[in-house]
C-alpha cells in the first residue's frame, strides 16, 4: 500500500485480556519497528525487525509483550494479560533501510479498563 497501515485504530479491552495489534508496512521495506507513545511521554522503542535477522526485542517492557513478523511483511504485536499501564498509542513504522527516515502508521490507541 501507499503507507503503513495499522489496525485496529482504537481498542478498548478489559484488564487481564490479551490483545493483538496489526501492522502492514510499506511494500519492500525491510525494517519494521514498534514504538509506544504514552500521554506526556516520548516515543518508547519496543521491538525492531530487519529482514530475516533475529528481531531486536530489547525494548519490550515485560514478557507479556511479544511480536512476530510473517514473511518479512505483516507484523503482529501481542500483549497478554493487559494491565492499565499498557494503555497508550502503539505506533508501527517501516523503512527501506535501518538508518533511513521511518514512515509511521497512524497508530492503535489501546485503552485498558
Amino acid at each position, binding site marked *: 500500500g501507499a503507507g503503513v497501515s495499522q489496525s485496529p485504530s482504537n481498542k478498548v479491552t478489559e484488564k487481564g485480556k490479551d490483545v493483538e495489534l496489526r501492522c502492514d508496512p510499506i511494500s519492500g521495506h525491510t525494517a519494521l519497528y514498534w514504538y509506544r507513545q504514552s500521554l506526556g511521554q*516520548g*516515543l518508547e522503542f519496543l521491538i525492531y525487525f530487519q529482514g530475516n535477522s533475529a528481531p531486536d526485542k530489547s525494548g519490550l517492557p515485560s514478557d507479556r509483550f511479544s511480536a512476530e513478523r510473517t514473511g518479512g511483511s505483516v507484523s503482529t504485536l501481542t500483549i497478554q494479560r493487559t494491565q492499565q499501564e499498557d494503555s497508550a498509542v502503539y*505506533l508501527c513504522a517501516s523503512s527501506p533501510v535501518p*538508518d*533511513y527516515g*521511518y514512515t*509511521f502508521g*497512524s497508530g492503535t490507541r489501546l485503552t485498558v479498563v
Partner: protein
Amino acid sequence: EDQVTQSPEALRLQEGESSSLNCSYTVSGLRGLFWYRQDPGKGPEFLFTLYSAGEEKEKERLKATLTKKESFLHITAPKPEDSATYLCAVQAVYGGSQGNLIFGKGTKLSVKP
C-alpha cells in the same frame, strides 16, 4: 545513557514570528539525527535526517541544523498550518539496538493567525 532533550515543551507564536526549537542530545556515537512532525491523532511524519555537525537541511519554512551537541529547527515566518508537535530523535552508531531511534518528548508548537 543515550538521551534526547527538547526545549521548550511548548511554544506559542504569532503568524510570521520566526523562532527556533532546540534538541540537545547525548549519544555514544551519532549515526543520525531525525526531525519529525506529529499532528494530533496521527503518527509522526518524517522531515529531515542530519548526519554530521555543520549539516543543514531546508524544507519550505523549516531549516534544521546540527552541531556536536544539539540540533535546531528554525521556523521562518510560520503559518497556522505549521502548528504541530515536533519530535527529535537520534540513532546511535554503537548500541544494543542498532537501527532504532531514541526520541525526545517533543515541542508543541501553536501558531496563531
